[in-house]
């Protein structure tokens, strides 16, 4: 196990190196230019060229790439073109909102998804099963903005129970933070719960058919014990995978939710960076999310061993 962990951690390095290079090349493939955006609609081509030169954007791409490597090795992610601050600072400002949103949405998704999947699997074909599965299907087909906007109209504009949008830090004002987080967490969590529910149901169905579950039944254990102890644990491996994938996606930024509810997280940072071609920020965000993905997957793989002792890593 220890050897495995070391190997996996070392594997981080080539992954990140490749990701960083590919990102660099990809974003320069995308048409568009940060300077033309920055200087506004009335700027002239000559002015734009002068500022491009000042920023070094006119240099050959391989030269820019080498400079970028040199900076990254020094732990410097560069300066944002638009935000007038180092990329590292811009990233650190986003960590808390993104983490809070991810954790709370994940909580909602798992609390809705896993139990409804299990309940549905226990009585496949029942009206209860169909209802749960239909609503989870709606969860994915309803575009994120639709649910979010309607939540805002209902709970903020009509009823006035909760604020429409915004963010407060947990450390500064926990009560306000909680109130701001309810609507985004529920709408995002509901969206993400759909896949978790479906996968839980499907894997539970498989697991309930396994020999050891039959054995347990034959031994006369109660249906509840069979479902929860024997089958559930076995079904968990793919479920954990899906939860892992969901976490990874959320960490990378729940763009629509963050935009609609005006949460200053990584999703908004990356989307505005992409739209304005803020190259250093795009590179920085992807470097950080790539590292996070690899680490989450490491955690997920290790979890497999605990959930299902038959899985071994040599």
């Amino acid at each position, binding site marked *: 196990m220890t050897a495995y962990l070391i190997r996996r951690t070392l594997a981080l390095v080539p992954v990140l190196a490749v990701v960083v290079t590919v990102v660099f090349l990809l974003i320069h493939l995308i048409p568009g230019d940060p300077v*033309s955006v920055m200087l506004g609609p*009335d700027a002239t081509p000559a002015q734009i060229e002068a500022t491009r030169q*000042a920023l070094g954007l006119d240099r050959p791409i391989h030269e820019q790439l080498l400079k970028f490597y040199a900076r990254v090795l020094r732990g410097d992610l560069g300066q944002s073109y638009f935000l*007038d601050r180092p990329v590292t600072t811009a990233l650190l400002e986003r960590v808390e909102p993104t983490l809070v949103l991810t954790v709370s949405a994940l909580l909602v998704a798992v609390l809705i998804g896993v139990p409804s999947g299990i309940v549905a699997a226990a009585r496949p074909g029942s009206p209860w099963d169909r209802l749960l599965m239909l609503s989870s299907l709606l969860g994915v087909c309803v575009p994120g903005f639709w649910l979010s906007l309607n939540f805002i109209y209902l709970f903020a504009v009509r009823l006035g129970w909760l604020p429409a949008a915004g963010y407060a830090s947990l450390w500064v004002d926990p009560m306000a933070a909680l109130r701001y987080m309810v609507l985004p967490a529920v709408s995002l969590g509901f969206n993400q719960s759909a896949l978790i529910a479906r996968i839980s149901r499907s894997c539970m169905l498989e697991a309930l058919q396994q020999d050891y579950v039959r054995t347990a039944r034959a031994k006369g254990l109660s249906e509840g014990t069979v479902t929860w102890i024997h089958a559930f644990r076995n079904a968990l491996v793919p479920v954990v995978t899906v939860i892992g994938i969901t976490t990874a996606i959320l960490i990378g930024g729940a763009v629509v939710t963050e935009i609609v509810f005006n949460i200053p997280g990584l999703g908004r940072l990356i989307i505005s960076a992409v739209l*304005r071609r803020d190259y250093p920020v795009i590179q920085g965000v992807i470097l950080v999310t790539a590292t996070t993905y690899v680490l989450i997957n490491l955690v997920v793989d290790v979890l497999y061993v605990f959930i299902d002792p038959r899985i071994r890593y040599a």
Partner: protein
Amino acid sequence: MPRLIALVAAVLLLAANAYAADTPRKGGIIRVGNLGEPPALDAHWTTASITETLTNHIYEGLYSLDGANRPIPMLAEGHTVSKDGLTYTFKLRQGIKFHNGKEMTSDDVVASLARWGKQSIYGKALFAQVAEWKALDKYTVEMKLKEKSAIVLISLAVPNNFGAIYPKEIAEKFAPEIKATEWVGTGPFKLAEWKPDQYIRMVRFDDYKSRNEKPNGYGGGKTAYVDEIRWQPVPEVATRVAQVETGELDFADDLNLDAYDRLAKNPNARPLVSKPYYWLVAVLNKKEGLMTNQKLRQAWQAAIDIEPIMKNVAGGHREFYRMDASLAMVEITAWHTKLSGLPWNEHNKAKAKRLLQEAGYKNEPIRFMTTQEYKWMYDFALLSKQQLEDAGFNIDLQVVDWATLVKRRNNSKEYDAFTTGIGAFYDPTHPVFLTPSWPGWTTDEDILKLQAELARETDPKKRMALWEQQTRQFYEKVPVIRYGDLFGLRAIRNTTKGFNEKTERIRFYNVWLEK
């Protein structure tokens, strides 16, 4: 009897409220929702309108615009012009403090405007005529011109990409093509904190020395009643509307026009129509490709039926568009023209077809770039496409994101036309679409000759005659296609008082909160 007393009390209370509403009070935080993050807070550096709005609270120029969009002194006390018209001498106001406590003097003014003259589009146009620019004493600066100029004061007064006065140290520290990242001005508010995607906080500058005149347009006396302006970027427009409805915002800018009816019904807030906003324009590439053919440009102008396009773009609301052929907008009273018989909005398909034939057009695709990032641009481009194709054009509508559009339009090989908006301009020499250096490249000699004359001629009457001549020429040569005027939608809570609804861009000095 008790009923009567209650009634009297109610009337008295109402009267008291009405009275209170007219009395400004200090304090509070005004929360303003806008579209997004500024690319910079350096007024010299970018023409972006969000930068214009924000920086005009922090900085001031020598001149400003009054309610009729004419130049009036701001940091200048006044000026004198020599007899030959070649030397302008500006007296500065004394005792003006920067936000860092330093007094503003002629050194700061000379350094700032020198930088502005190298980077800003208005500054460059002015400084092209300047022979010498120097300080005479601590509170006097002098501008010597190469030739007579009509644009000295107006150039110093424009609010966009404007000649903001920075401390000398900052103006000299940042080269013109590099944006300044230290923000110290003389304005009524100073920058306190900028947290991207959360807020920009501006707090009252206690040592601000206001002019004695009454507030007038963008200029005159300025009082910071609120303790703080909190600019909150809210990228989703539906959320911006909702946050005004719930009272989470005191003001919101740039809303979708379809929200007008709902805001009008809200008891706690009301919609504001912002005029002027933009006139919609299709800029044609006159350097290369199909649109170098004047007949083809005329055909486009003849083909379009502007009113249905404008009505659709305006969400069906008559309040949000205006049919007008003048190049300067109605609000710019000094330069608005009322010429008749211009070939504008002819929607004459037969004429368009004839012109197409004369142009020798063989159904080649015309590459028309637009973006959905500004919804009105996409809307009017799509509506134009159908009308033009009905008249015999073949339009290849290319929908890209804004960053791609503004990059591609610099390359004459990549397009035939693109959409944008023309905001208010305050002098006939200012519109970019009549210059050879801006995308689209208006290089027509007759147009440029008149523009040069307009810059030199100082007699207002003669200038107006030249400008009318230029307008006629515009509709003959068709450097760009002028559509109608579009207006914007803002929303204001009833508790926000003293807001000047007449200016093009929003300002929050002289505004107070009633809550």
